[in-house]
């Protein structure tokens, strides 16, 4: 099943770095997933996060407030398949 990944962040360098890591992992491992960037602060606040960037996989928050490594993102994406 295709996974829905969301990157929450207002567009600061860290948020861009996170998006980059996620897209790299997806293309590297051929993962079936869509990446959505949520940049509107009003939208971001609906997810109840206080620190950006945040990573959501299928509406579960995996990471808040920091840029993850590729391996870490890969474990999140390869879980529960």
């Amino acid at each position, binding site marked *: 099943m295709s996974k829905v990944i969301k990157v929450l*962040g*207002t*567009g*600061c*360098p*860290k*948020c861009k*770095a996170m998006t980059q890591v996620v897209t790299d992992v997806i293309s590297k491992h051929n993962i079936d997933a869509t990446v959505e960037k949520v940049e509107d*602060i*009003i939208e*971001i*606040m*609906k*997810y*109840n*996060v*206080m*620190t*950006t960037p945040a990573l*959501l996989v299928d*509406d*579960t*928050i*995996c*990471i808040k*407030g*920091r*840029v*993850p*490594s590729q*391996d*870490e993102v890969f474990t*999140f994406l390869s879980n529960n398949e």
Partner: protein
Amino acid sequence: MFDWLQHFADWLIFTVFNIDAGTKLGTALNFFVYDTIKIMILLFVIVFIMGIVNTYFPIEQLKNYLNKKKLYGLEYVFSAIFGAITPFCSCSSVPLFIGFVQGGIPLGVTFSFLITSPLVNEVAIAMFLGMFGLKATLIYAFSGILLGTIGGWLLGKMNLEPLLSDWVKEILKLKMQQTSYQKEQQTFYQRLPEITRAATDIVKGVLLYVIIGIAIGAIMHGYVPENFFNQYLGGGQWWTVPLAVILAVPMYANAAGIVPVIQVFVAKGVPLGTAIAFMMATVGLSIPEATLLKKVMSLKLITLFFAVVTICIIISGYVFNLLL
């Protein structure tokens, strides 16, 4: 602590390049090499330590703690201290602000956090430590926390909730919606490479500004006569502190590069209080932050917020000039 580095700079400039130690060029180059390397080391170490703090900082627990305890005014102090030790980038300030207010923390206490957070940040601390030494850095950090405490308390007295943006008021009315959260399970060693990489990125990001700042500082150090500023900006003129604060506002992007230049100003006769006020205005009154905050506050509230911070910075400048 950095004696070895001074020996290295002396050796490199005076022996390897064979430039006479007495010349202006020799002094300037020596100053440049020594400061650049020292600042790079300090920046990396401090940013790295703050990176570790950042990864583990229990921001949710902090929010709950500030919310539940009745602290008889001390909550402003705590909030300001937490603002000082949490190294979040400016784009997190809005989510943090809303998260705090949504969690039931009074607006004034939230402001304490919001004022101190950019004032006492890792880059400013590293630069201050490198250029002015430990004592001035402690004074800077302490006054940043004091300023946040007082500023937040003042703003808290003004009953500003009606001045928040409409959508924020809407969100505050709504019951907090719970998004499921998977607890992070990474060990420290798994996180270490990422923290190192992030620290390297931050240092790289400010490197150019720092080098330019130190280069300008080095040139001024060698060529501007002693006590030059004493005649114009030093001593008693009352308007120097407000002037320093106003001049600082557009400097935000180069905050790291500003410190070496300020250091030369101080060495040539500008009082330390004026310099600290300048530094605080550089990082604390930033236009990018105002733009972000515009989304959650009305123009009136932002103006009030910045006015209170500005006044506090100016007063602290005067106080330090009197005390130091």
